């Protein structure tokens, strides 16, 4: 299993580099640069261009970049000059990862519970309600849900409680985590719930469940000890793509809630043409997504003893 983890991680790193390289090269083909603004005189602009090696042919820039990559240096920001991209991004990485983890927890907890309940009471009213709730949740764009939540918490709730309850959007306090986490994680809980429900329904029909009943086990023992673990296996399969989508969907939520994370920075960097930042953020995102996927894959052998990686 260790060899598998190492192999996959290497693949992830390789993939991230490949994709980032594509972005790097693509970006260098674009016309214009970060220094074409009123506050910079043409001679200063020339100096800056030279300082950032932007006047060199792009293959040389690429080699320089790769070299820097292996030393852990992602270059300097074009906009915040003199500052290393990594130091600038570090706090934002923490923020985005924090939000992502919180959202993923919401997704998993809500999704599994909803799916479990719907699955063991198939075709009863509680199943219909839960299933419909699930479908509705992933049929609404998450910026819709996010905006509604913002309005709800900051405006409506304030008015309703006559100023007693005030939610300040932003980041920094523990109390500010739940709302954006819910906004980001709730839509995908529907997908998890649906998969869980399907898994449970499938497993309940299996022979080994009949054997369990025949031994005189109670319903909770049958469901929790026998069915759950088997039903979780197909859920883990979709958890990877879901986690990826949460990480990247954070972009939108960060925007709406004014959260200073990687997503906001990514858009900013494109708008301000701070391409070193863009490439760096992209690389980081690819790495995170890849690592999360590998970690989730490592869950398989825990659940299913037949799988030995």
């Amino acid at each position, binding site marked *: 299993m260790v060899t598998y983890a190492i192999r996959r991680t290497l693949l992830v790193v390789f993939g991230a580099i490949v994709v980032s390289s594509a972005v790097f090269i693509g970006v260098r083909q674009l016309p214009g640069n970060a220094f074409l603004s009123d506050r910079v005189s043409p001679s200063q602009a020339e100096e800056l261009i030279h300082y950032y090696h932007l006047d060199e042919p792009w293959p040389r820039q690429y080699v320089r970049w790769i070299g820097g990559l292996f030393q852990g240096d992602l270059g300097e920001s074009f906009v915040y000059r003199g500052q290393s991209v990594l130091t600038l991004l570090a706090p934002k990485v923490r923020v985005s990862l924090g939000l992502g983890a919180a959202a993923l927890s919401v997704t998993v907890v809500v999704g599994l519970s909803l799916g479990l309940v719907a699955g063991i009471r198939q075709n009863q009213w509680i199943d219909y309600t839960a299933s419909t709730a699930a479908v509705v949740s992933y049929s609404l764009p998450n910026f819709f849900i996010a905006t509604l939540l913002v309005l709800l918490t900051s405006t409506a709730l304030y008015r309703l409680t006559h100023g007693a309850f005030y939610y300040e959007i932003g980041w920094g306090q523990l109390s500010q985590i739940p709302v954006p986490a819910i906004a980001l994680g709730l839509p995908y809980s529907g997908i998890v719930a649906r998969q869980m429900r399907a898994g449970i329904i499938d497993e309940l029909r299996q*022979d*080994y469940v009949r*054997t369990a009943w025949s*031994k*005189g086990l109670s319903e909770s023992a049958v469901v929790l000890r026998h069915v759950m673990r*088997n039903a979780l296996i197909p859920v883990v399969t979709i958890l990877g793509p879901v986690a990826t989508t949460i990480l990247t969907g954070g972009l939108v939520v960060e925007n709406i809630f004014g959260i200073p994370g990687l997503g906001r920075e990514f858009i900013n960097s494109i708008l301000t043409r701070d391409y070193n930042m863009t490439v760096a953020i992209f690389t980081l995102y690819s790495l995170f997504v890849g690592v999360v996927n590998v970690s989730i894959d490592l869950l398989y052998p825990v*659940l299913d*003893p*037949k799988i030995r990686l």
Partner: protein
Amino acid sequence: MTQAVLSVQELCVEFPSPRGTVRAVRDVTFDVAVGEIVGVVGESGCGKTVTALSVLGLIPPPGRVTSGRILVEGRDVVGMSPRELQELRGSRAAMVFQDPMTSLNPVLRIGTQIEEAMLAHRGYDRRRAQKRALELLAQVEVPEPERRASSYPYQFSGGMRQRVVTAMGLANHPPLLIADEPTTALDVTVQAQIMTLLRKLNSEYGMALLLITHNIALVSSLCARVLVMYAGQIVEAGPTREVLRSPQHPYTWMLMRAVPDLDTPRGRQLINIEGSPPELDVLPSGCSFHPRCPHALEQCRVEDPPPAPGTENHLARCWVLMRNVTQGAPGPAKTRSLPAERSLDESPLLQVIEVHKEYLVGGSFGRARVLRAVDGATIAVQPGETLGLVGESGSGKSTLARLILQLERPTRGRISFQDQNLTTMAPNDLRRIRRHMQIIFQDPYASLDPRMTVGDIIGEPLANFGWEQDGAQQRIVEVMELCGLSRSLIDRFPHTFSGGQRQRIAIARAIALNPDFVVADEPVSALDVSIQAQIINLMADLQAELSLTYLFISHDLSVVRHVSDRVAVMYFGSIIETGKVEAVYGSPLHPYTSSLLSSVPRIDPDAEAQRLPVTLRGEMPSPLDPPTGCPFHTRCPIAQFPLCSRERPLLEAKRFGHDAACHFPQY
């Protein structure tokens, strides 16, 4: 009189369905006395499994008991609360199910699963349960219980799993154990082991056993009393000896003659029970068997017969009763003409010489291991004959079939057909040869494309070889009628047909091009007993009419004996004995063959009582880890060391026309 441990009284179970109510169990009444072994025999759909499930209250919804009582130790199961049922299950009555591969939870350890059977009921704590679990594993003869208890199901073979499931059933000393087809999915030798185990448990613990099976011979071997079920009713019941020696219900009578047995004379044709069992939502009027019964009277059509009392508790639901039938019994008299002696000088149609097939298994990058599915097999098939290929699961017979048809290429060795070397042939030439050799698969539900009509399925080989529309249409209809399918069925889809009919379609497809050679890979193993006879007879008729040569592969020794002229026995990837059927079955040379033959239960109670099984130790070794020398030496009762573990015996003629691969053939 001691109270019966199980008393089922006028039980009726129904399943509401969109097509109408399915009456799965109708008016079933029987008792199982303390310590008695009772067998329930019937084909699929007869209601035997539903009856068994209802004893534990395990009928799958939407089915329900509509009337009747089920008394387990005097307490009625029908109408019990879930709580009461929970207490009953596993402690007063336990069940062993059919498929050992799916009956165990794949993600929990064996030990845990056995322990929870005890922990679910009072009186055990963790430690005691663990100890007892190990004792139970020892009782069911699982070697190395401590190590096995912490293993997972996927690490066990089918026979081992079935032992584990039995151990779970035994855990709380239930007075009643219900076994639903416990050995159907197992090999003959393993089946013999499980049967011995069940017998032992019954005699040592006085545990009553209700054995559900379609295999009449099994009943003969184990059960004191037998019940025959058809279309949801018990049509005959009585002491096993009585029922099998003089069956009173025509169905029982015909069923016994539709099954080939190792003792029946070879020339005797199997009885065809025409048609198939009725759909349980559209039952025939009167006696449910009358549409298929050659003795049916007008009364049978009108009125459903009640159980008619006979001697010694031997009942049968029939207006006619076989003892009253003097003549017109459907003819076993018609004997099949056995093929004339063929000279062995004639050039064989198919020759397989030292063929090997190896697979690489396991992870990449050097961790791969070699799996030898076929390990040096040699056989020859003469034109016009039927060569039977017998072997247990894992012997490699299916792989060999696919190699012969070039559906896979052998790793080593030579296969020649009509003197042409198939292994070195170019793909296009190979395609052309295909019109001469065809295959019939085991599973009639998987061998027909569900999205194609019957006409398309049968017509596909014709289209491949350039038959144009009209000629093809004609040929399709011709072939369908040859196989007993009316031409009006040509536009139907496979899912509307029964298993037997689908197999007919598969056979029609195989003979469409008028091939010389047909490989039949377990063609009747997935079919009900009464349908098996139909298909076997059909294949025999086709062989005579079209001069076909068959390679008939099966694990069922009786069937192979009945259909084949010569037979080859396969073990662990190689052929270990070949010869004429009478020779091999009558005086086998290889110890595996004799053990195999001795493990097959007989239908006739006297013959069965005299049978002395030679039980083999352990199970077939893993193909990833082959034994040195003779592959059979690990289980052989007469192996002598060091020769047998060092040198692999070659397949050689030990008697005229009778080859064996053994250092110590049993002359």
